[in-house]
């Protein structure tokens, strides 16, 4: 219903109902299924499109690490913001008049349900690993980008286990297949929490990407936009330089596959809560994140390649 509380955490069923609601409320919003998870839950994407076929597009996902609840919650707030601002906000209107936007609010639905029903600390997928008593793969170590290299574990019981092979996780493969078949994505943005970072490639190696200067400058501009609202400070840089070397990550894959504007956000934690951000912080986190995202999206729109 329209009474959905964006300032609260919700179950997967409630989130999916809200996606239906947004799709029914706005003619340019469509809920599409791009695959299903290991436990056969649908992977739903909201497609924001005001016309034209195979327009240049922007990808945005959240919740690949299931316990980082503020990301799924922020994605919903952002979806509602984009939908309601079209036609009234000049920036969103000109963006959607030129490009499509695809938003995956719950990239790891099995893990998300598991955090609600069994273990709030769960981060990985729920796939069974042959020969191991442990379950699940870190889906942000499972992309075909330096797969199996430094910063990922080969131990199935580890929280950063990279999985038996690249794209072994159907949640990852579904996104890869969708993006490849679309063929016209210009930006790949992913929401994580926490630690207030805005990162670009690379993570699997500690060298600068070819577009370093532009990504660094754009990242700083986005961080400045984020800071403008509540003063939240984001550090900007490559994954390797800002946090640590991590192989098999999504934005390294997207960048190496020709999507220049590839960024990962680590949302606010206010220095106290880690990824267990209180619900009162959801809307402020989403509001400031949206300003950063908008800065990047405007740049992409103006610099189509």
């Amino acid at each position, binding site marked *: 219903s329209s009474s959905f509380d964006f300032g609260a*955490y*919700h179950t997967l069923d409630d989130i999916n109902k809200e996606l239906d609601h947004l799709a029914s409320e706005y003619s340019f919003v469509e809920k599409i299924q791009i695959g299903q998870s290991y436990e056969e839950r649908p992977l739903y994407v909201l497609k924001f499109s005001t016309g034209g076929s195979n327009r240049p597009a922007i990808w945005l996902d959240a919740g690949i690490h299931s316990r980082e609840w503020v990301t799924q919650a922020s994605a919903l707030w952002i979806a509602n913001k984009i939908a309601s601002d079209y036609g009234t906000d000049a920036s969103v209107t000109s963006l959607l008049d030129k490009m499509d936007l695809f938003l995956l609010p719950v990239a790891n639905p099995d893990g998300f349900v598991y955090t609600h029903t*069994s273990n*709030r*600390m769960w981060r990985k997928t729920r796939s069974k690993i042959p020969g191991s008593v442990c379950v699940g793969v870190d889906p942000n170590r499972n992309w075909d980008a330096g797969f199996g290299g430094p910063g990922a574990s080969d131990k199935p019981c580890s929280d*950063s286990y990279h999985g038996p092979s690249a794209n072994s996780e159907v949640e990852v493969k579904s996104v890869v297949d969708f993006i490849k078949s679309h063929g016209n994505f210009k930006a790949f943005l992913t929401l994580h929490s926490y630690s207030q970072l805005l990162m670009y490639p690379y993570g699997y190696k500690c060298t600068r990407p070819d577009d370093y200067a532009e990504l660094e400058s754009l990242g700083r501009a986005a961080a400045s936009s984020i800071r403008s609202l509540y003063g939240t400070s984001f550090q900007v840089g490559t994954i390797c330089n800002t946090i*640590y*070397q991590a192989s098999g990550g999504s934005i390294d894959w997207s960048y190496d596959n020709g999507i220049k504007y590839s960024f990962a956000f680590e949302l606010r934690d206010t220095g*106290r809560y880690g990824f*267990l951000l209180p619900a009162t912080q959801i809307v402020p986190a989403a509001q400031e994140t949206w300003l950063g995202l908008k800065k990047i999206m405007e740049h992409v729109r103006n610099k189509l390649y």
Partner: protein
Amino acid sequence: LETFVGHQVLRIKTKNEEEVKQLQLLESLDHLELDFWINPSAPALPVDVRIPAASVQSVKAFLESQGIEYSILIEDLQDVLDKEKEEMAESAQRQR
């Protein structure tokens, strides 16, 4: 639903590479069942780790013996989760 009574989350600040190495050693000790929210990587970056109740004392003793600085980020994880659950229930009630 698994409970986390007595689990603490520590924020550890390392001063040098040696201390980072000590934390990486700690990370490899599976029996402590530590959950690193931010893994040890470089002295400039904090390390956040969830420690099950049974391991809290031994991890703190280890850090203190090595002179590694830490603070308590979350005193009792279950308190935080209970509050979160309560807030979700209140929101659901309001919506109904």
